[in-house]
Every structure is written in C-alpha cells, then in structure tokens.
C-alpha cells in the first residue's frame, strides 16, 4: 500500500524542494512560536497575554475562534450547494473547501485550547459537565459535532488515498445525511457565536450590539465561506497546479464568477440587515462619533464596496476583479469579528486591550501549522484531482 501511496503522491517529486522561501519562513515562525506556546501553558495567561478580568477575550477568541469559524463556512456552503441543491459543476472545488473548513475548525479548537489552558478539561461539556443553560455549552457541542461531521465529509478522500474501497462505499452512502447535519449544525452554531454577544448589552458598542447579531453572524458566515472558497481555490489551483487532473478540465474562472454572483447578492442583503440593526436601536446619531466612523468603514468599505465589485466583476466576466473583491470580503469578515469581540467590546472602559507580542506570534504559529497541514494533505490525498479508479464514484 505504501508503494501505491508514494506512486500517487509523487513522493520523490514533493521531497525534491525542501528549502523554499515559504518553508524557511515557516520554520522560523515555528521555532519562535512553539516555545512561546509552551511558555503560555507553563506560566499561564497572565504571563503571556494582555488579557485581564476587564478584557478576558482578546485576539485568540476574536481571530482564532470567531474569524476562523466564519471563514471555515465554505465547507457547508459548498457541500449544500453540490449535494443538496444539485450544483454539481462546483464539485471540483468542493473537497478543497471541505478540507479548508475541517482544518479551520480543527485549528479553532487548537486556538481555544491555547486560550482556555487545561486541555484535559476540553471534553468536559461533552462528556462530564452539562451546562445546559449556557450558550458556550451550545457552542462546545456544535463544534464537537460539526468537527465530526466535517471529518466524515472529508473521509472519502482519505479512503481513496488508502485504497479502502469498502469503507469508502459506507462513507459515500452517508453523504446526503452528513451534509444535512452539517448545514443544520453550522446554521445553529454560527448564529450561537453571535448569540454569545447578546449577553453584553452594556459592554458592546450600540452600533455593533443588536438583537439581530445571531443573524448577522450567520449571514456573514455564508459571505465569508463563499469569499474564502474563491481565495482558497485560486491559490491552491495556482500553487498545486502539478496536483491537478490533466484529463479533467476545470473551468475555475466560471466557478469563481458563479461564487462571486452568490456573494454579491448575499452581501447586498447583509448591508441592508446591518442598516436594520442601526434602525432597530435608533442609533443613527452614533455614526457621527469616532467608533461610528470605524463602523461606516466596515459597512461601506468591506460590505457595500465588495458587493458592487463582485457585481461588476461578474457582469464584465472579470475573474480578477471577483478575486480582489473576495480578498476584500475576507478582510471585512476579519475586521467585523475583531470589532465585535475586541474593538467594540468594553469600548467605554479606560483600560483598553491590545494583544501582546506572544498572543500575536501564537496566532501566526497556529495559522502556519494550518497551512502546512493543508499542504501536506493536498500533496498526498485526492483533493484537487481524482484517482482514475475512483472517477465518478461519488
């Protein structure tokens, strides 16, 4: 089996280029980041972060968890499009989207572990201590279940790689059920992450606080997922072009335009929903304040602008413009989640939070490990290509 796997992966080819600029940078990041992670676990949050009782949530929750979950939404968005709505044309980018989603969630859990400490307590809400009245209990169960679902969604690629035909038949038969479970769980927990902030009506700035915040989180996760699939598929089809199936032509430009059209329509609706959020609290006057200007930058520069860029790009068949709009949208999602969890949270206290260098380096380390894992899997498993013996088996 090992020989077959090596043949499929072109093992000698991938081993030929070990010293590349990316690998050098990755090694430097890991050489600094891993000792810092050990330091954080050995000495606690107080020694490694600028978190405090006033500001208990910082970069790791805002970026690693909230942003990571939103940008990992491409998995359920694409899986439901392909398997439930029958848009089979998008199958060539589906496995990469599911892998991005799975790894995104996996490293969300890693980020959460670094934030929480005491990793042995991670299974508590699932197996030992049921805090059924807590939103965090809901989030813990959703992440646990959805991570399992995403592993099942990606497992056909693992089975094909290992040549496990019987197991492949079994996991393929679960596809529709697993996809439905994935959509249900994603809908619930994307909005549940927003619902966490319903508990802070006085701590969260009124422009970001709204009774619609669970809806904002869910709708924006669809946008983040679509944009992330465009960015990720463009990058992976460029970086891993030797992994693409030469016998199967993929119209990546056409798929990008289709995804861009969907993103523009959802962004359009999302923009008006954000306006409804302001109208609901009648907070128009707050727009003329420093944080109000920042809110306007978020909704005009990172929601309305990419919305029109997507629309113009799709209409003019300009794939480059759609890709640029996707990058802008991904940045917008990052800004939104950091605004909600860091910038606009505790906006009225004097002791404002800014992440320490160790928090930043740990975040960069986790992202680097995620990218290295993605590359390791794509270089070995049928993510961007299909093995001839399994063509048409799914």
């Amino acid at each position, binding site marked *: 089996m090992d020989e077959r796997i090596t043949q499929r992966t072109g093992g000698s080819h991938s081993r030929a280029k070990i010293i590349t600029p990316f690998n050098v940078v990755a090694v430097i990041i890991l050489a600094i980041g891993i000792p810092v992670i050990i330091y954080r676990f050995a000495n606690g949050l107080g020694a490694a972060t600028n978190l405090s009782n006033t500001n208990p949530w910082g970069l790791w929750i805002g970026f690693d968890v909230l942003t990571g979950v939103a940008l990992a939404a491409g998995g359920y968005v694409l899986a439901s499009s392909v398997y439930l709505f029958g848009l089979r044309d998008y199958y060539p980018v589906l496995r990469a989207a599911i892998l991005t989603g799975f790894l995104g969630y996996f490293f969300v859990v890693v980020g959460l572990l670094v934030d929480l400490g005491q990793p042995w307590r991670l299974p508590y809400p699932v197996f030992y201590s049921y805090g059924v009245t807590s939103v965090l209990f809901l989030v813990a169960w959703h992440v646990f279940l959805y991570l399992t679902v995403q592993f099942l969604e990606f497992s056909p690629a693992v089975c094909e790689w290992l040549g496990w035909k019987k197991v492949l038949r079994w996991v393929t038969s679960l596809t529709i059920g697993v996809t439905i479970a994935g959509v249900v769980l994603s809908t619930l927990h994307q909005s549940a992450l927003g619902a966490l902030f319903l508990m802070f009506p006085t701590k969260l700035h009124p422009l970001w606080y709204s009774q619609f915040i669970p809806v904002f989180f869910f709708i924006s996760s669809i946008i983040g997922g679509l944009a992330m699939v465009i960015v990720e598929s463009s990058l992976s089809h460029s970086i891993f072009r030797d992994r693409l199936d030469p016998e199967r032509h993929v119209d990546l430009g056409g798929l990008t335009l289709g995804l861009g*059209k969907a993103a523009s*329509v959802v962004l*359009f609706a999302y923009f*008006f929903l954000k306006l*409804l959020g302001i*109208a609901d609290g*009648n907070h128009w006057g707050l727009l003329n304040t420093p944080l109000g200007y920042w809110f306007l930058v978020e909704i005009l520069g990172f929601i309305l602008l990419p919305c029109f860029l997507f*629309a113009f790009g*799709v209409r003019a*068949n300009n794939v480059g413009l759609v890709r640029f709009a996707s990058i802008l949208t991904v940045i917008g999602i990052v800004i939104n989640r950091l605004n909600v969890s860091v910038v606009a949270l505790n906006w009225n206290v004097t002791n404002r939070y800014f992440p320490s260098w160790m928090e930043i380096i740990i975040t960069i380390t986790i992202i680097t490990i995620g990218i290295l894992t993605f590359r390791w899997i794509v270089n070995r498993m049928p993510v961007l290509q299909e093995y001839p013996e399994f063509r048409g088996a799914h």
Partner: protein
Amino acid sequence: MPYEDIWGMYSAKAMEYIIAVVFLFLFIPFWRFVNKKKETIQHP
C-alpha cells in the same frame, strides 16, 4: 408619555419599514444587473 416620545418610537419603526421597502425596490435592479452578462462584440 410625552408627545415627542411617541413620535420618536414610531419614527424608529418607520425607518425599519423604509429600509425594508428600499431594499426590496433596489434588489430588483441589482438582481437584473448581476444576472445580465455584458455582451462581447465578436469581430470576424
């Protein structure tokens, strides 16, 4: 309840309805715009 407060409450609600109606009216041309591909002129 003072007269101004009643109107204040209604104006907030009215704004929500206005936003919803404006969205619906703008969504139609936006949808048409996104779905209409630019015709490319083909030269012989």
